């Protein structure tokens, strides 16, 4: 297929997007306590004049009704939460026991600094020097790890609080480094679409909670909105490091720099064939880079959304990033931008005709 003339994509202010990504990724919003990100999202929604509601679980549901009463109802979802730690009762002078929230390995937290709670109090999971390691487990389990916050004023740190990696956002050319791109990259994509949506769709944006602990927010959000189409906008781990001998790495999932990842299927969902075909054709037609994400493990909010009520046609589109669910990840600016452009194309071409013929 010959690429069509590229459409006139709206210009995005890269500096504004970077500032947005900085604000979003440096917030502490571990599953179950997404308040800092929710506050930011609400402020941007107010700025753009969108109607919104916060449901019982904490999902932000933003709505822009269609000018056409018969307009297709479309839900885009990006999750606000991130993986992190929950503090258990203090056992000695500022040492807190830990439990992971979401998919987090004890290996990933060793020797790392954390921000605790809304005040972002600094703590560290200390690592003894290597010459003192003898006889110790190479990778301690959670019971043997402590977060050291030091003596702190009463109330600033307490059991039950969440902690997230203390990682600042950085940019180097095309590369973007930071924590929680999963899924603040998706949240930023939705926020940047707010002022670029067509009037033909009955459009809902869900900024969901508790994705990392079982897609819980998306489940109730999709039930409430009951859309014709749901699209999960997420960030997927790129396992694209070459093999040790330079051979092909067959376990790669997606590759950084190869464009947005379209999901064929994952652990919980088979993408709707009509939506997948439509997105695939758009990417080919407009010469947008894209890749198919390897089928297998992992899941997005689509896993919960597509089985709500009598079923919802669903698709997942992700920005690839290396090192997610860890202290620092790397994402490509161009991947993020091409994901935004693909979503923009989808929103401007979705219609009931796309959903015909199943």
């Amino acid at each position, binding site marked *: 297929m010959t690429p069509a003339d590229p459409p006139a994509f709206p210009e995005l202010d890269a500096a504004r997007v970077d500032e947005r990504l900085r604000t979003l990724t440096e917030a502490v919003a571990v599953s179950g306590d997404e308040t800092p990100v929710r506050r930011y999202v609400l402020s941007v929604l107010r700025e753009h004049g969108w109607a919104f509601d916060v449901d019982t679980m904490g999902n932000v549901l933003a709505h822009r009704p269609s000018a056409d009463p018969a307009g297709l109802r479309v839900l885009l979802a990006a999750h606000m939460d991130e993986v992190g730690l929950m503090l258990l009762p203090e056992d000695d002078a500022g040492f807190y026991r830990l439990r992971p929230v979401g998919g987090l390995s004890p290996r990933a937290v060793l020797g790392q600094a954390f921000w605790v709670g809304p005040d972002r109090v600094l703590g560290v999971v200390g690592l003894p020097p290597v010459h003192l390691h003898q006889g110790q487990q190479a990778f301690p389990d959670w019971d043997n790890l402590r977060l050291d916050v030091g003596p702190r004023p009463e109330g600033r740190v307490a059991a039950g609080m969440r902690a997230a990696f203390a990682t600042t956002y950085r940019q180097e050319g095309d590369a973007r480094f930071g924590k929680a791109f999963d899924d603040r990259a998706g949240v930023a994509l939705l926020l940047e679409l707010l002022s670029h949506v067509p009037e033909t769709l009955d459009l809902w944006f869900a900024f969901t909670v508790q994705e990392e602990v079982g897609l819980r927010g998306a489940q109730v959000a999709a039930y409430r909105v009951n859309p*014709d189409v749901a699209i999960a906008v997420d960030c997927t781990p790129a396992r694209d490091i070459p093999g040790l001998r330079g051979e*092909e790495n*067959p*376990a*790669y999932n997606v590759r950084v720099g190869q464009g947005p990842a379209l999901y*064929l*299927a994952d*652990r*919980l*969902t*088979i*993408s*709707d*064939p009509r939506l*997948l075909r439509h997105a*695939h054709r758009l990417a080919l037609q407009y010469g947008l880079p894209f890749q*198919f*994400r*390897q*089928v*297998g493990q992992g899941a997005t909010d689509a*896993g919960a959304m*597509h*089985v*709500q*009520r*009598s*079923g*919802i*046609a669903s698709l997942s589109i992700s920005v690839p990033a290396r090192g997610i669910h860890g202290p620092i990840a790397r994402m490509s600016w161009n991947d993020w931008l091409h994901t935004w452009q693909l979503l923009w194309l989808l929103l401007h071409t979705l219609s009931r005709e796309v959903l015909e013929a*199943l």
Partner: protein
Amino acid sequence: MSLLADLLALAALDAPPGREDAVRDAVRRAAEAHGFSARTDALGNLIVGPDEPRLAVFVPLDEIGFVVHAQGEGGFWRVAPLGPVAARVAAYQPVRFLDGGHALLVPEADAPEALRWEHLLADATSPLTLAAWGVWDTAPRMTHDGALGKAVASRALVAIALQLWEVLSLPDEVTFVFAARTWTPGHGEGPAAYGLRPRQMLRLRPAPTQDRPPRRPGGLTLGSGPGLALRDENRLADARLLAWMEDLAREAELPWQAFVPTERTWVWTSAPRVAEGVPTLTVVLPTRYLTSPYERIMTSDAEALLAWLKAALTAVARAPYS
């Protein structure tokens, strides 16, 4: 057509999860030929019959599938399974794709003994297409006592439903749901049940026998009649439906066997938990080598299941949740 002829014709069609069009269209045509209206929901379930029926009969539309997700080095491709198939079962087996391509699944040259899917390559006879959906490339065939081939168990259940339409006019209070994506998580049964709100449901599923030596007690046996799942992986069968089906089998002098599924039996469903809950019983067709390219079923089991369901539909007014 006979049950066996129907099932062989249906098993020759390809319906990987999410791409069940061929079988769905065949069933829709059969429904329309009987004067029944059929509708398709958002996930691809085909529904034949009224909403809020007294009884819903769920039948799987799909079969084990594959999808091409990457081009590997040296002209080989990477595929992933859609459904529960071990890599060791797939090695050296042929696969065909809905767009016409064919490939042989082969292990990498230095693949370990404990094969995983990431060690398998698709050696294609012609260039494949990314995102192409495929199925086992084995022709279904008749045996002296049944059928052998890909998807024969699931298609036998579809054929049984079509046979029921031949011999019974569809009762007003029964709806058939030909469910999509049943071999993958997030399958179509739950949303279909949510939309239908049946008072009770019978799920027809193939289930693996455990009758290869060494035999273990408690498993299904080929040729001993259809089975009733006493529970699935996470909930008990509905006791009143179980008793009803037992009574029907006794009255009709039909063979049947009870069994307790394991996590490798793949009969799980979310359907009983939708809305206010749906009383559910899973009725299974014993199948050897389930999900492999060569499933084996026996005609006598399928015919007993047909007779049992005929008795149930005839007596639907006596179904426990009325």
